[in-house]
């Protein structure tokens, strides 16, 4: 210990004094040790080390060689002269408060919007995932054969447990793998019953992700795969602190999930919400869904996502190649009749799965758009600075004549623009925080979109903090974002000071001073050349932005008009889970029937029914479909499947094409019946009517066959943009589902309807919560959020660009008129009419605007191609959109000339000449 203290003291002491300081310290140590004992001396030594470290900077400064002191003195004189520049610039800004306010506001908006957008992009895709060996984590998917060669639907399919088991026996490329899926649980006991999002997982889920419980243990492989063991569960940190006050004794206690007693065995770290991003409770697969472990019946029940950690010596490509082999072999293990339809498997890194390609592209497009806004702001500022440098010509010329070097002058300009940019950036940070705050109000966390890494500011427990969903409230300004902003500031300063500096560097003091004596009539040095080009460029940039916004708006309008197959107006949807054990299929069915009967009696309710997955919600299952009355055709056709009760189709206004809907007579003891949608009818029966045919369906106990009793209209269950795809409906009365969707069509207001429904539900079962209560119109809105958000953002930036451009055009034209006041006065004195004067000014504006628009149109055609995949039924070069925005921009640009032109025609010849 003594040696360590001594070592520290010598280390931090400058070389010149190191030896003697160490010796002195040792002497003193021995003195104290002799007088007061070694313990006292050691304590003294540590205090001394602290003091020496504290005093080290001063010591190093005092001990530096004389030569350095010399350099520093000259550098300090350079520093003080830059400081002088800063003070000079600050004084100059104070004298021109209008100019400064406009410049700083422009920059604050530009830099602020960029910072906010970058913060989003950073949170969504740049921050690394907080898992151990995150680069080796992959999501593995099965690839289903396409039902027909021309079918474009997504082919990636999640796993059934038996197929996963087969996969683990085959594969050698992954260290460890796990299944998981999101589920909702009703949690009761210890307070009010509530719905808690959770995940059903296999035992290795935690070790794949490198997450360890903070208390207790994870699940054993037995618990996860052998049905019939005592139920266990793990709690998330949030639920644990919120509901159980962070009591460590919760581990070992019993809680009721879905009405079943589970023993809590572990608490997971704070911030970890599973890969699904919102889980707060975890149960083993075999406990919550024992049927799914059954190799016989669950082979085609694709319900779970597979996450796996690649072995360190296996590349991603090798893993993909191996999966391409395993896929067909897993399929071949199936005992279902198979005529060689080619299933396969693939994988994607977790990092790339965070957001899909479209969202990534959208984020970059919006970031690019906001970059354009900053460019336009820079152009405006450059124009302002050039205008100012014109008025300062005399001052600069005098300084140069007195011996100031061109470098010195350029530095002064640089310092000025850096000061402007830095002030703008500081204000911009405030703007960015404000924008993110507004975003968090407009887009609350309940409807969060991106899956990405943990929220900034949340402490990183090693291996914790999962792929949380991020909402706008979780996006903040972190280190990387601030670095980005600093870079932006420097870029802005350089960009805006470049042209003024160049102009100054070619300044001839002699000519300027001579000209000043004669106050050049006519154009003098005030040629608009570079400024006109800048304004033209500004118009071009604005046009590109407006064109992008226009295309996005048009896409949104097209999407809005797109039929989804149901009539969303006046329909309310709510999720109810009848998952508790006492809800046997018979009891659940009785509950469903009784609730419908009661709701239909409520005044104002037109109709009501039960469904399973909501339209445009993307939550439907897919399963195999077999044509049972076609002997020899064992082909399995991948088909969407959902459930419905009588009343569902009427409530949703889904049209009946042929046959009949489900009726109350389709009971459990009656022959099994199904409905198919138009697409399925067309694809599988090729023009013949499927009504009366027998098909097998891979889920709901319908694999042995059921009769098709009707064809109903197509409904877009996954996305508005996508095709509806083939779908089959099973009757809830013949095939039990625990989680069902209540749909009610009514003229009542949402509030009144919700309370009426809650009252009836409470009457039947006081412990049953309604969840995800949403009007169908809201669901449609949610499904359109991506296009909608993009069109909002781009429109906002477009409007900003339009405003900045108008300011730019106005500034330049006003400058033109001011410079030519004398000329205009002479012309009017010589008999020019107002029309001629208007032509003089406006002609200039028309040329600049026209050139800008032409360049902008050319650039738009090139740039909007990046939008192609985000657009819906609109081509990136849509002539109507481009024409409209060009027209709007042209009008705005010319309108900005109104005040300068009016000023020009009011010029009085006498006043103008007198001012000479």
């Amino acid at each position, binding site marked *: 210990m003594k040696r360590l203290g001594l070592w520290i*003291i010598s280390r*931090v*002491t400058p070389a*010149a*004094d190191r*030896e*003697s*300081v*160490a*010796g*002195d*310290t*040792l*002497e*003193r140590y*021995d*003195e104290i040790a002799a007088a007061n004992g070694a313990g006292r001396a050691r304590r003294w030594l540590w205090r*001394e080390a602290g*003091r*020496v470290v*504290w*005093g*080290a900077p*001063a*010591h190093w400064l*005092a*001990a530096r060689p*004389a030569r350095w002191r010399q350099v520093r003195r000259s550098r300090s004189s350079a520093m003080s002269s830059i400081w002088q520049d800063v003070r000079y610039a600050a004084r100059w800004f104070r004298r021109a408060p209008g100019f400064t306010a406009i410049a700083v506001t422009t920059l604050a908006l530009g830099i602020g919007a960029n910072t906010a957008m970058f913060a989003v992009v950073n949170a969504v895709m740049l921050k690394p995932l907080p898992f151990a060996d995150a680069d080796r984590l992959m999501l593995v998917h099965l690839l289903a054969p396409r039902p027909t060669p021309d079918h474009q639907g997504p082919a990636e399919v999640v796993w059934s447990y038996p197929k996963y088991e087969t996969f683990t026996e085959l594969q050698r490329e992954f260290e460890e793998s796990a299944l998981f899926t999101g589920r909702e649980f009703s949690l009761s006991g210890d307070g009010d019953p509530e719905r808690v999002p959770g995940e059903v997982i296999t035992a290795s889920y935690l070790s794949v992700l490198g997450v360890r419980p903070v208390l207790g243990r994870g699940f054993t492989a037995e618990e996860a795969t052998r049905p019939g063991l005592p139920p266990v569960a793990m709690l998330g940190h949030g639920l644990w602190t919120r509901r159980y006050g962070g009591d460590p004794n919760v581990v070992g206690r019993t809680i009721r999930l879905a009405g079943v007693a589970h023993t809590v065995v572990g608490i997971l770290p704070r911030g970890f919400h599973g890969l699904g991003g919102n889980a707060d409770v975890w149960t083993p697969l075999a406990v919550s869904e024992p049927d799914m472990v059954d190799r016989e019946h669950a082979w085609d029940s694709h319900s779970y996502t597979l996450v796996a950690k690649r072995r360190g010596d296996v590349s991603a490509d090798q893993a993909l190649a191996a999966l391409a082999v395993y896929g067909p072999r897993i399929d071949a293990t199936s005992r279902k009749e198979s005529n060689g339809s080619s299933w396969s498997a693939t994988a994607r890194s977790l990092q790339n799965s965070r957001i899909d390609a479209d969202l990534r592209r959208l984020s970059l497009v919006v970031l690019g758009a906001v970059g354009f806004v900053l460019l336009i702001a820079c152009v405006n500022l450059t124009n302002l600075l050039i205008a100012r440098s014109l008025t300062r010509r005399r001052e600069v010329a005098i300084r140069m004549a007195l011996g100031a070097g061109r470098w010195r002058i350029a530095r002064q300009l640089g310092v000025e623009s850096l000061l402007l940019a830095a002030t703008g950036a500081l204000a911009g940070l405030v703007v960015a925080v404000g924008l993110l705050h507004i975003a968090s109000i407009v887009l609350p966390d309940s409807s969060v979109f991106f899956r990405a890494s943990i929220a900034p500011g949340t402490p990183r427990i090693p291996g914790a903090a999962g792929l949380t969903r991020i909402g706008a409230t979780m996006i903040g300004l972190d280190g990387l974002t601030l670095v980005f902003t600093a870079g932006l500031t420097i870029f802005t300063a350089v960009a805006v000071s470049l042209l003024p500096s160049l102009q100054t560097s070619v300044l001839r003091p002699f000519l300027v001073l001579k000209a000043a004596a004669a106050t050049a009539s006519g154009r003098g040095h005030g040629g608009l050349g570079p400024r006109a080009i800048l304004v033209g460029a500004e118009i071009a940039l604005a046009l590109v932005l407006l064109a992008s916004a226009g295309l996005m708006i048009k896409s949104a309008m097209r999407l809005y008009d797109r039929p989804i197959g149901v009539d969303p107006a006046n329909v309310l949807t709510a999720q109810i889970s009848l998952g508790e054990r006492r809800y046997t299929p018979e009891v659940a069915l009785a509950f469903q029937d009784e609730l419908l009967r009661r709701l239909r009696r409520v005044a104002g309710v037109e109709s009501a029914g039960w469904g399973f997955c909501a339209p445009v919600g993307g939550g439907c299952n897919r399963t195999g479909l077999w044509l049972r009355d076609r002997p020899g055709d064992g082909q399995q056709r991948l088909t969407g499947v959902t459930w419905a009760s009588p009343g569902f189709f009427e409530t949703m206004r889904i049209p009946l094409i042929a046959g009949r809907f489900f009726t109350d007579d389709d009971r459990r003891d009656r022959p099994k019946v199904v409905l198919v949608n138009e697409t399925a009818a067309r694809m599988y029966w090729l023009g013949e009517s499927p009504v009366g045919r027998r098909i097998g369906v891979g889920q709901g106990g319908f694999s042995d066959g059921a009769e098709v009793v009707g064809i109903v209209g197509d409904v877009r269950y996954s996305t508005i943009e996508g095709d509806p795809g083939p779908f089959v409906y099973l009757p809830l009365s013949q095939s039990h589902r625990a989680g069902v969707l209540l749909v009610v069509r009514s003229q009542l207001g949402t509030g009144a309807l919700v309370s009426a429904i809650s009252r009836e539900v409470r009457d039947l079962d006081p412990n049953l919560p309604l969840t995800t209560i949403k009007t169908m119109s809201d669901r449609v809105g949610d499904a359109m959020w991506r296009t909608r958000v993009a069109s909002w953002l781009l429109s906002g930036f477009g409007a900003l660009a339009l405003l900045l451009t108008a300011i730019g055009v106005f500034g330049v034209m006003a400058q033109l008129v001011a410079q030519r006041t004398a000329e205009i006065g002479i012309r009017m004195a010589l008999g020019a009419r107002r029309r001629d004067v208007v032509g003089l000014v406006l002609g200039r504006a028309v040329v600049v605007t026209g050139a800008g628009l032409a360049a902008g149109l050319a650039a738009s055609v090139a740039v909007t191609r990046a939008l192609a995949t985000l657009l819906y039924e609109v081509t990136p070069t849509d002539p109507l959109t481009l024409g409209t925005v060009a027209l709007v921009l042209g009008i705005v640009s010319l309108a900005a000339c109104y005040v300068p032109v009016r000023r020009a025609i009011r010029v009085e010849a006498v006043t103008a000449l007198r001012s000479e």
Partner: protein
Amino acid sequence: MSSTLGEFEQLVLLAVLRLGANAYGATIRREIETRANRELSISAVYTTLQRLEQKGLVRSRMGEPLPERGGRRRKYIDLLPAGAQALKLAYRAFAGMAAGVEQRLRAL
């Protein structure tokens, strides 16, 4: 070298004066600690010595390696005439100001 001495510089110079030929880091520090009754670090002493040396008020010379210091040498400090002069001026100023109020100073 007409710049006036800082308070700590005065203390260090007084210590050097008192210690004479035996003035080096450890003794200067002990002198200030016991006489002026203040806790200080060795680096504070050396920082000030560096500054005094640069002003031409003191001079340093290295002694012989000593076994009790682990073979390290001492850096002895000599007071230069300019240092003595500066110290004299500082003392005069202090004594001049204090003259006639010693009683009251003690009573404070």
